[in-house]
């Protein structure tokens, strides 16, 4: 797979990425979690290094699946996620973007907790 630099950011990723939104419940057809993980890993095997997810997909479940699928190759891929949505924990509905800054659950490095991280 060819790679591309996103602008002049120094962030080099596969020329074609993978949008993960559709692989979890809540966004169209339901995919079993293991099948979704297998699909993401199949993308890795074909050279994809750019994966897009969001806190609001699911909500949360998409980040968890993406994080689990990519844990073994975390240092070889780029994960893009999105935060700042006002998600009702009871209903899972998003009322728009109004979380104050800093409210996003993150670890000491500012990495989204839902995606998880590899300690290295």
């Amino acid at each position, binding site marked *: 797979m060819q790679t591309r630099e996103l602008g002049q950011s120094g962030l080099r990723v596969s020329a074609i*990425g993978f949008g993960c939104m559709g692989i979890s419940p809540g966004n169209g057809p339901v995919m079993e979690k293991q099948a979704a993980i297998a699909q993401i890993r199949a993308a890795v095997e*074909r050279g994809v290094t750019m994966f897009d997810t969001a806190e609001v997909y699911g909500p949360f479940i998409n980040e968890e699946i993406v994080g689990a699928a990519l844990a073994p190759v*975390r240092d070889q891929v780029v994960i893009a996620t*999105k935060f700042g949505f006002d998600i009702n924990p009871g209903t899972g509905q998003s009322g728009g973007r109004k979380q104050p800054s800093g409210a996003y659950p993150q670890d000491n490095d500012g990495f989204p907790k839902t995606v998880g991280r590899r300690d290295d």
Partner: protein
Amino acid sequence: MKARCVILDCLNRNRGSVRRAHAVQRVAALQNRYSLLERGPEANGTFQVCEELGIGLIAYSPLGKGLLTETINNELDAGEAILPALRSRFMSDALCRCAERDRRTKKATQAQIALAWIMAKKPWIVPIPGTTKLHRLEENTAAADCNINGGRYFPHRRRRAAGATENRGALAAVSAACQGVFASKPAPENGFNLILGSA
């Protein structure tokens, strides 16, 4: 491992806010809907600000929610005749002819041409198609090797950009209709994602 870059999801942002954000924290990329069906970023200042500030573009919905793939041809009943009407609304005849010629000469699929077209536009754009099917994943990733000559495609015309709001409304209506079609069938195979309104 930690968060490395800031990417702005730009659906509701204007170019001024991109500049302001970039001044505070380097922005690696913007994320916009961009495809043969949605060419707003070429004319609304997004391309310009990306070029000027060295920012990349992540193109979501690069297959037009499946509307740029063969899948939807197969899924929609012929009687609905919605696809030709839709394409003619968003894409000029010249653009359609160009894409069809490339599809034949490159022996590529509609989806591959749609992705290759995006990559040919600028070297700093990365499309992110989604799919639940392995063979569609293979089809999509193979598009990386499907080089087409973007220069042969006619430039975006402002006239169409001016109708972008109307186009978005039409696209939403067609998407809703397609969901009805898909609801009673197996999972769509390629790129048919719902875009959350506030995302």
